C-alpha cells in the first residue's frame, strides 16, 4: 500500500515517520523542517541547523517536486516535470498560501516584489529576511496576528525599530477580545514597538508605507504576515469538494475515499485551523487511522501560543465565539487579562495574557475536558497567596527525620542538647536553622 504525501511540511514529516511505504513530495528544496521555529530563528534564539525533522531512511523523499495535477481515475499525481507518481492513498498536506494585502507598490513594474518587502512563511523567507536585518534600521510588520507579533518581537530583539500595522480594531483580533488586545498593545509599546490598529496600509512608496490614517512609516523592511488561505488549487482542479479548505470527514478523508487532507489546507466541519499544532495532531491521528486503528477526529482543541520573548499569550479554543459562561479577571494596571469560557463545568475556551503561571493546569483541564467544581474556574484565575509566617505550635513536627516536635526543642537549652536528647538535626540536616531558632525562643528572657 503506497501512500503519497503532497507537501513536506511538519504534518507530512510526522505522517512519514509513522507509516511505512511512503513517498513525500515537497516543493521546497529543503528536507522537512519545523516551521513553527522560524520566528525563533529570526530572533536568534534557535539554531537553524536544529530545525530539521526526522524522516526515516525508508521514506521516498523527493524535494523540489511540485505537484501540478492529481489524476484520480489513474490514482497518480503529476509533477511539474510531467513525470507521474502512482498512489494507493494520497494525502494532501499542501498547507496555506500567504495572501498579499491590497497595498499598491508591493509589486514592482517588473512583476517582482519590492526588495523591501518580505513574506514570512518558508525557510527561504526566513533566510532572506534574516540576511536583510543587519542592513536595516527599522521595519514595519503588516498584520497584528500571532505570526505578526512574533516577527515584530523577533525584529525588535534583533535591534530594529519595529512597528506593527493592524487593520482591525485591536491586535490578535481573530483570537482575543478588545481588552486583551489593548493590553498586548501596551506591552509592545513598552517594549519599544509602535502599534497602529484600525489602520490599513494602502501604498508603498519611496518615502515608506502609507497608511489610510494619513501616516507614512519610513521603513527599510516591510514584512507581510496578514493571513493566508488554504492551498486548495490542486484539490479543486481534481474535482474534490472544496469550500474554504479541502473538506474532510472525521477520518480526514476528502470526497474521494483514496484521498485525505491534513493541516492548513483541510477543512473539518467549519474549522480551518491554520497553524501547526492541529496539523501535527491531525497527522498523528491520520497515521493511526491508516494503520487500521479505530480513531476519529472530532475537531481540534487548539492552543495558540505566542512564541515571542516577553509576550505571554495563550488562546485556548475560540474564546470570542465559544458558547458558555465567562469567568474573567482583567487587570489593566498589571497588564493581565485572563478569561475562561466554561460550559457544564468544562473549560471550552480561554484567553491568558500577561500571566501564564497556571497555563500548565488550565491546558490540562481543557484538553481532558475535566469537569470542574463551581468554585474552580475562579480559583484557577486567582493566584496562590503565600501564607503569612506563623509561630510553630508546640505539636508541629520540626524534624521529620527524627520525628521531633517544636515543643520538645523549645524545652532544650542548646542546639547540642536538642541533638543529643531528641536526635533532631541528625538526619537530613534540613531543620538545623529552625532548631537554632526554636532553642532561642525557648530560652528564658
Amino acid at each position, binding site marked *: 500500500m503506497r501512500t503519497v504525501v503532497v507537501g513536506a511540511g*511538519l504534518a507530512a*514529516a*510526522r505522517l512519514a515517520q509513522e507509516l511505512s511505504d511512503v513517498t513525500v513530495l515537497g516543493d521546497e528544496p529543503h528536507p522537512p*523542517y*519545523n516551521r*513553527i*521555529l522560524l520566528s*525563533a530563528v529570526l530572533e536568534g*534564539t*534557535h*539554531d537553524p541547523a*536544529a*530545525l*530539521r*525533522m*526526522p*524522516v526515516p531512511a525508508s521514506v521516498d523523499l523527493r524535494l523540489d517536486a511540485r505537484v501540478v495535477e492529481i489524476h484520480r481515475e489513474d490514482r497518480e499525481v503529476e509533477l511539474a516535470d510531467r513525470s507521474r507518481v502512482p498512489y494507493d492513498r494520497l494525502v494532501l498536506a499542501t498547507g496555506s498560501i500567504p495572501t498579499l494585502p491590497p497595498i499598491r507598490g508591493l509589486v514592482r513594474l517588473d512583476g517582482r516584489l519590492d526588495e523591501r518587502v518580505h513574506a514570512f512563511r518558508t525557510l527561504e523567507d526566513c533566510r532572506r529576511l534574516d540576511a536583510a536585518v543587519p542592513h536595516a534600521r527599522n521595519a514595519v510588520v503588516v498584520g497584528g496576528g500571532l505570526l505578526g507579533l512574533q516577527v515584530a518581537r523577533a525584529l525588535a530583539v534583533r535591534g530594529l525599530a519595529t512597528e506593527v500595522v493592524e487593520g482591525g480594531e485591536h491586535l490578535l483580533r481573530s483570537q482575543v477580545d478588545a481588552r486583551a488586545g489593548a493590553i498586548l498593545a501596551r506591552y509592545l509599546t513598552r517594549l519599544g514597538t509602535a502599534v497602529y490598529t484600525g489602520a490599513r496600509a494602502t501604498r508603498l512608496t519611496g518615502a515608506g508605507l502609507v497608511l489610510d490614517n494619513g501616516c507614512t512609516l519610513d521603513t527599510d523592511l516591510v514584512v507581510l504576515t496578514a493571513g493566508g488561505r488554504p492551498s486548495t488549487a490542486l484539490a479543486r482542479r481534481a474535482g474534490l469538494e472544496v469550500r474554504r479548505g479541502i473538506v474532510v470527514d472525521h477520518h480526514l478523508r476528502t470526497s474521494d475515499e483514496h484521498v485525505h487532507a491534513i493541516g492548513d489546507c483541510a477543512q473539518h466541519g467549519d474549522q480551518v485551523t491554520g497553524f501547526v*499544532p492541529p496539523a*501535527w495532531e491531525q497527522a498523528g491521528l491520520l497515521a493511526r487511522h491508516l494503520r487500521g486503528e479505530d480513531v476519529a477526529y472530532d475537531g481540534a482543541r487548539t*492552543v495558540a*501560543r505566542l*512564541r515571542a520573548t516577553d509576550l*505571554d499569550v495563550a488562546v485556548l479554543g475560540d474564546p470570542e465565539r465559544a458558547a458558555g459562561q465567562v469567568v474573567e479577571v482583567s487587570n489593566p494596571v498589571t497588564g493581565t487579562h485572563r478569561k475562561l469560557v466554561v460550559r457544564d463545568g468544562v473549560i471550552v475556551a480561554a484567553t491568558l495574557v500577561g500571566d*501564564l*503561571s497556571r*497555563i*500548565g*493546569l488550565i*491546558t*490540562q*483541564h481543557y*484538553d*481532558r*475536558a*475535566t*469537569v*470542574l*467544581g463551581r*468554585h*474552580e474556574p475562579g*480559583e*484557577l484565575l486567582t493566584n*496562590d497567596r503565600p501564607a503569612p509566617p506563623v509561630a510553630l505550635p508546640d505539636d508541629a513536627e520540626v524534624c*521529620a*527525620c*527524627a*520525628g521531633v516536635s517544636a515543643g520538645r526543642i523549645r524545652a532544650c537549652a542548646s542546639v547540642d542538647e536538642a541533638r543529643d536528647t531528641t*536526635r533532631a538535626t*541528625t*538526619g*537530613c*540536616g*534540613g531543620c538545623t536553622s529552625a532548631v537554632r531558632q526554636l532553642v532561642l525562643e525557648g530560652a528564658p528572657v
Partner: protein
Amino acid sequence: MKTHCPYCSLQCGMTLAREGRALEVQPWPEFPVNEGALCRKGWTATGLRGHRERLTTPLVRDRATGELRAAEWDEALDLVAARLRKLRASYGADAVAVFGGGGLTNEKAYQLGKLARVALGTSQIDYNGRWCMSSAASASNRAFGIDRGLPFPLVDVERTDVLVLVGSNLAETMPPAARHLDRLRENGGHVVVIDPRRTPTAERADTFLQPVPGTDLPLALGLLHLLDGMGAVDEEYVAARTVGWPDVRRAVASWWPERVERVTGVPAAELRALATLLAGAGKVMVLTARGAEQHAQGTDTVLAWIDVALALGMPGRPHAGYGCLTGQGNGQGGREHGQKADQLPGYRMIDDPAGRAHVAGVWGVDPDSLPGPGRSAYELLDALGTDGGPKALLVFGSNIVVSAPNATHVAGRLADLDLLVVADLVMSETAALADVVLPVTQWAEETGTMTNLEGRVVLRQQAVAPPAGVRSDLEVVAGLAERLGHDFSADPEEVFTELGRASAGGRADYSGITYDRIREEHGVFWGGARLFAESFAHEDGRARFVAVEHRGPAEPVDAAYPLHLTTGRVLAQYQSGAQTRRIADLPDAGPYVELHPMLARRIGARDGEPVVVATRRGELKAPARVVDTIRPDTVFVPFHWVGANRLTNDALDPASRMPEFKVCAAAVTA
C-alpha cells in the same frame, strides 16, 4: 560493631553497641556516605529485636484445619523439598519458581540464583528489584554498556554546578543524602527538582518543575530541543565520545516548548529557564529515581535524560554526568549476582555462552545444564498456578501482596499455587498466605555484604546472636539444596569468595573484593570509584544516544477516571512496611490520600476525613490529606500499606519489565 542500616540503598554506616541486654544504634561519623547522620528509621532499627511478632519456629499449614502450626526445621524443609521434587517430576523444572528481593545481601542473591539454576534447574527466578530501578538499569546498559546506579561517589554531588533530580524525593526516602544537597547549595551550586509533588526535597531546591505524572520523558525531549536550538550541545564531546546524536537531534526538533507545555503541564517559560540554566553550567549532574523510572516507558524516560547529560557533554567528566538513585538496600548488588531472570553472577547475561561456561565452571556443572532466561517479576507472578506456569513459589525478602502492582490479582495468583513457601522475620501479609513459613534472621543477627547506590560494597556485620529457632536465609538455601542433592555453603564469607570467582571478568566484577578490604577501606567500589573518565563500557568505548518518543501513560485519564494517581514513600516507613510498621517508635498512621484544595473542594472532601480512590483494578478508602503541594489533577497514596497497589497498573515497560506504579487513571469521591 560497625555495620550499616537495614533499609534503603544509602546503607548508612552505623555503630551497634551493647548496653546491657539492649542493642543501641550509635553514629559512625567516619563513614563518608552519611557521616554519622541517620533518619529515624536507622535510629530505631533495633526495634525489631526481641519483638513479640518475631517468628521463631517454622510453620506448616495443616491440611486438615487449614491453619498454620509450628513445626521442626527438618520437618518443614523435608516437606518443602519433597513437594518441590514431586512438582518437578510432574510438571518439569520450571514448575518451581523463586522470588527474591533487593534487600537481600549479595551472598543471598547469589545463592538464590545458584539454588534456582543448579539445585532446582528452573529458569523461573526473579525479584522485586525488577520493580525498583530496572528501567534505569536497562537504560544505563543501553547508553553506557554498564549499569552502576551512580558511576561516582555520592559526595560528588556537592561539587557539581547544577544538580537535576528527576522523580526523586531523597529528603524523605534517604534523608541523610540531603546533606550533600545542602552542601552543594552552600558551595554555590543549584538544585533542580522535577516532581508532580512539591516534596520536602523540592522545598530545598532552587528550581522546581511540577509536571503531570508520566511526562518526564517529553520534558527531557523539550530540554534537548532547546539546548540544541541555543547551540548548547557540546559538539566536541558528542563527536569524540558518543554515537547517535543526529537521530536524537531530529527527533527533538518536533518537541518545541509550547508542545512540551501542553503535554507536561510545565509552562514553556519554566522549561526555557531550565534550559538556559543547564546551558550556562560547567558541570551538570542528572539523577533519576523511581518517579521517572516506574513507568511503562521508564527505560525510554531514563534514556531521554541520559541524552540530556550526553548532549551537555557530562558523563565521564568530574562531578557531572548521569546516575540513578537506587531504592532498595541492595538494589545494586541484588541485580548483579543472578537472582534476575536473565542474568548470571557478575552481571553476565544468561544467554551469553561465554558467561554460562564461566559460571558453570565455578559451579562445577555442565554449561548446558543451566536453564535459559525466565519470566520477569510481574510476568512470573501473573503466571503462577496457570497452565504452564509455576506451581510452587519460594519467596525470600519480599512481601509480594503489598508491593506488587494490581495486588488483588496477584494475591489470586498466589492462591492458585500448589505450594507457597515464604522466608521472613515476621508474619508479613504474604507469609500469612503461605503453606510453609520459614523464620529467618534479621540484619544485626547475620553477616553479609550489600552494594549501595554508589556501587560501594559494604559489610553488615553480625552484632548479636539470633533468637533460638531462626536460621539465616543462607542456611535455609543450603538446607534445601542439601535435600535436593547439592552441597551449598551457608557461611557468608565463603559464599562471598565464591561469588567473587563467579563474577570475575563479568561487567560487575567483585573478584578483588574481600571482607577485610571492605572493613579497611570503608567499603570497596566495584569497577573503581569513578567510571567513564576515559571510555564507556561499549566495545568501541563510546556512549550511545538513543532517540525515544513519548507514548504517554498506558492508562490515560478519561471521564470515568479523570485524575492521575501516583504512589510513593513516606519518611518513617520502608517498602511494604513489614519491618517498619512493627517498630513502635515509628509513626504508623496508615495510608492517606493526598489531594489539592481545589480538587478537595470539587469533590467535597475535607482534610482528615475519608475519601475513596478507585481505579479499574480496585478501591482504597483512606483519610484525605489536603495539601497545596500536589498538582490539582493528581492524587498521591503512599505504598507501605495494603491498598495502594490494589490500585496500580500492571502495564510493563517493554525493555525493563517495570510495572507502571507511578501513574494510572483514578477517580476520587468523598
